[in-house]
Each structure stands twice: as C-alpha cells, then as structure tokens.
C-alpha cells in the first residue's frame, strides 16, 4: 500500500515537474495570466466600480458569484459540523 502510494506520488510529481518546462518565467509581465483577463481588472476596475482595492472589486463584483458560494461553503461547514456532532444522548456512539 505504501509503495503504491509512493509510486503514485512520484508519477504525479514527475508529471508536474516536467510540465514546468512549458511555463512562462516567474515574475514575467508577458506571461498569459498577466496579459489577458487581468489587464482589464487593473485598468478598468476603479473606473467601473469606484473601489480602489482591486482585489475587493474583483472579489465582490466581477467574481461576486464565486464569493456568494464561498460564503455558502463556510455556512455549510458550520451547519455540517452541527449536524455531525449534535446527537442526542440516546443515539450516542459507544466508546
């Protein structure tokens, strides 16, 4: 079991390690992520939302749908913890 896990880990690691060869250089301003969608945010976010903090503008507005579900995720965690732990005495697990 452990050797199987080790092999799986090494294979995944090798795959990821080898594919870093195709990546743009770290910190380069010309890499695709820094050139396509994000440019619009940096240039226009302040104008379009009047929020100086671009991260807040993107989080709250451009990708607000994500953030809504982010709150729902943490709400689920709270409800889930309650649902898992709050059992009546008579349905208690034996220890």
């Amino acid at each position: 079991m452990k050797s199987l896990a080790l092999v799986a880990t090494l294979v995944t690691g090798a795959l990821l390690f080898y594919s870093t060869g195709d990546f743009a250089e770290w910190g380069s301003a010309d890499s695709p992520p820094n050139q396509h969608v994000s440019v619009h945010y940096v240039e226009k976010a302040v104008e379009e939302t009047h929020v100086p903090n671009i991260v807040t503008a993107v989080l709250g507005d451009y990708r607000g749908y994500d953030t809504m579900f982010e709150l729902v995720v943490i709400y689920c965690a709270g409800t889930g913890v309650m649902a898992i732990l709050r059992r009546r005495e008579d349905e208690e697990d034996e220890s």
Partner: protein
Amino acid sequence: MNSNLHMYILAAPLLTSFFLDIFGRKKQGLIAPFVLGSLALSSALAFVVLGRVLETGPISYTVGAWLPPWGIELLVDPLSGLMLLLIAVVALIASFAALPWVRKELHDRVHLFFILYLILVAGLMGLVLTADAFNLYVLLEITSITTYGLIAMGRGRAPLSSFNYIIMGSIGASFYLLGVGYLYLLTGTLNMADIAQFLPALQGSFALGTALAFVLVGLWIKMAFFPLHGWLPMAYSQAPSGAGVMIAPLMTKVTVYLMLRLMFSFIAPGFSMYETDLQSMIVWAAAIGIISASALALGQRDLKKMLTYIIVAEVGYMVGGAWLINEPGITGTVLHIVNDALMTLCLFLAAAAIAYRTGSLKFENLTNLYQKMPLTMAAFTVGAFAMIGVPPTCGFFSKWYLLLGGIEAGQWGYVVALVFSSLVNAILFFRIIEYAYFGKGADDHGHAAIERNEAPLMILCPLLLVAVALIVVGLSSGPLVENLIKLAIPAGFLG
C-alpha cells in the same frame, strides 16, 4: 436576453435553506412545507426554462452584467436545461421519501439535514449552469461538503466512510483545481469558451496535456470511475436513507455531465487529443471498470451495497459512451444520465421502503417481501428490469444507443462489457426477486401468517410514480432524443 428565471431555480432552495435555519429550529412542522414548496417551485421553473430554451436557443447569462471573460458566465442550453429539470424533479421526489426517514433516524436534527439537502440541490444546479472553470470548483466543493455532512450523519461506520470520502474528494477537487491552474497559466482566462479559443495554438504542449489530465482525473475521482471508485460503496451505503435517495441518483450523474460539458468545450472534434490512442484507452478502462464493478456486485450480500457497485458500473457505461465520441455514443450517454438517475432513484426508494419496514437489507431478510409489500416490490421489479435493460423500460433504449455507438466505433471490448454487465444485472436482480418471492420454504404456504405491511405513503407514492416514469420515459425515448438530446449536442459531435 434579460431573463432571470433560471437564477430563481437556483435561488429558491438556497434562500429557503437560510429561512429554514431561522424558523425550522423552533417549529418542526414548517420544515416539510418549506422544503417541498421550494423544490416544487424550482421544478416548475425548470420546466418553463427548458421550454423557453428549446424555443429560443441557448441563453448566455452573465452574472453581475460583466461580459464573459471578465465576469462569470452561465450557460443555459438544452443540455443544462434538461439537467436542471432532472435535478429539481429527482430532488423533489426524493424529499418526499426523505421526510419520514429523517424524522425516524435523526430526531432533532431534521432541520440541519434539510438545510444541507437544499444547499446540495442548489449546488448541483449551479454546477449544471456554470461555464466558468473556477466557479465549477467552488460549486464542486459545495456539493462535496454538504455530502460529507449528510453521510456523516448516519450511524455505525458512516463517519469513517465519510472521512475516506473527504480525503478522496479533496484529492479529486485539488487535482481539478491544479488542472484549472495550469489552464489559467497557459491561457490567462477562466471562462471555458475563452480557454477553448486558445487551445488549438497550444497543441502539443506538455503542460496542456498535464492540465487536461488533471482536470479529467479530478472529475473521475469525484464520479467514482472504476480504479478510483474506492470511496463510493461504503459512503453511499452508510449514508442515512433519506440522504442516499438523493445523493445516489444525482451526484455521479452530474459529475458525468460536467465531464461532457468540459469535453464539449475543450475537446472540439479535429483537436488532436482524441485522435490519439488516449480515446480508446479510456474506453477500454471503462470496459474493464464495468466488468470489474459488476463482478464485485456479485459478491455482495446486502441490497444497498450491491446497488452502489451497480452505480460504479453505470459510471463506466457513461464515461465509455462519452469517449466513443460519435453520435450514438454521446446521445446514449445523455439519455443514460437521465435514465440512470431515475432508475437509481427507483431502486434506492424501494430499498428505503423495504428498510423502513424490515430494518435490514441483507438478502436473508428479504424473504416473502412480495406478500408483505406487493406494491413496493412491483416498483422494485420495474426498476430492476430497467437496470437490466428489458425493452419497455427506459434502461433498454439508452443501452441500445450505447451499444450502437460501441459497434460504430469498433470498440468491441466496450460492447462485450455492456452485454456482460446486463447479464450480471439480470443474475443479481433475479437472485433478489427469488429471495423475495419464494421466501424460505414450503412450511408457510397456505397460512395467512404474512400480513401486508407497506411502507408509509410518503415513501410508497413517489416510488410508484418513479416506476411509472421509468416506463413512460422509456416509451417516449424517441421523441426525447429527436427533440431534445439532438439539440443538446454540439454540431461537431453529430454525424
């Protein structure tokens, strides 16, 4: 196009769950009307939306009125409209049966159960709608977290199975997120259609192959594709029955839909990836998965456990059918998503009804059920026939399309696996029917010792409804394929 109807489908269960937490804690009587009302509203709206989409064509909706690559895009096309309707209807039917079960099993945690239940439904609907790769991850985690919670509410081994599911599910989601990260690094965008535009230029890049591999493997873990299925049987069979009737039909099917959606966006025909051996490798893996899962199902002595292994085999059907990448294969896959959701719902409802009265689903305890619960067993038999693929029921038609697709693509391993699995299903279900019909032996024939003891109407009525639906959907397969599923498949995959 400024219609928000499909957003209300999603918002109705979501908002209801918050109100349920405020009001349902004090007044248990409010839970049933809240849950049923919101899901009924969703189903009705989903029906209207599907009709509208068929009339006017796909709607591209942008949340927050930001144009697609910058904002989050939602796509309502015939396929997602069909899935929305399926999710809403299955959740509505399952919630009828869940109510008595949850009151019996969970006592004062009923409202917590239904909060998670409603958010799970909303999450599944969101998954079906979204056309944004990262939003898909967030929603995938919502459905996972609610499912972890629902499963861990069960008794006995449930927490341990839930923990295994948490670890496997997190690996799947993390792999998916890594894959999306790679795609973002290579293209600079998260919108699926926008990513697809950049892909032809990136052909042959090793990083792109890695990205797609991670996305696919992540989804395969989530849908329990054969070698990665380890978490599913324990998790689904240990879940509280009220949760099982909803999770089992919907979770894996929605994940299969997601794989289809990603294939439709990323792997347009003509793109080199599917001309390689990869495609037939996946189909072979599916074939091996179908055979192994069916063989494992033969070894089970518990009805619910056996059903979970059949689910794993069915996932093999759908993954294999999708990767045949020809018209009958994909048509069959979409049709099978619908049919399999209904068949699994029928069988799990029957299992829930039997367990409600007998308390156990071990084969030895299923004796004389035809005398005790004739209506339940009639519905169970219809479900079993559908699972085997006996003609008037819907299971036959989707299997027929899948077979045709396999023959057209020349994937004989897959065809053999389909036939083998149908035979195994026949053996499995006739074994149960034998137990349930003939019972222990001759000593109690003639005596009126066995009383009829059907499950409560809240479970029985939805069960009978689904059993009828199995036949109705089966008989209307032709129109369904012609008028709906043909429209749902992108033009490149047809013909």
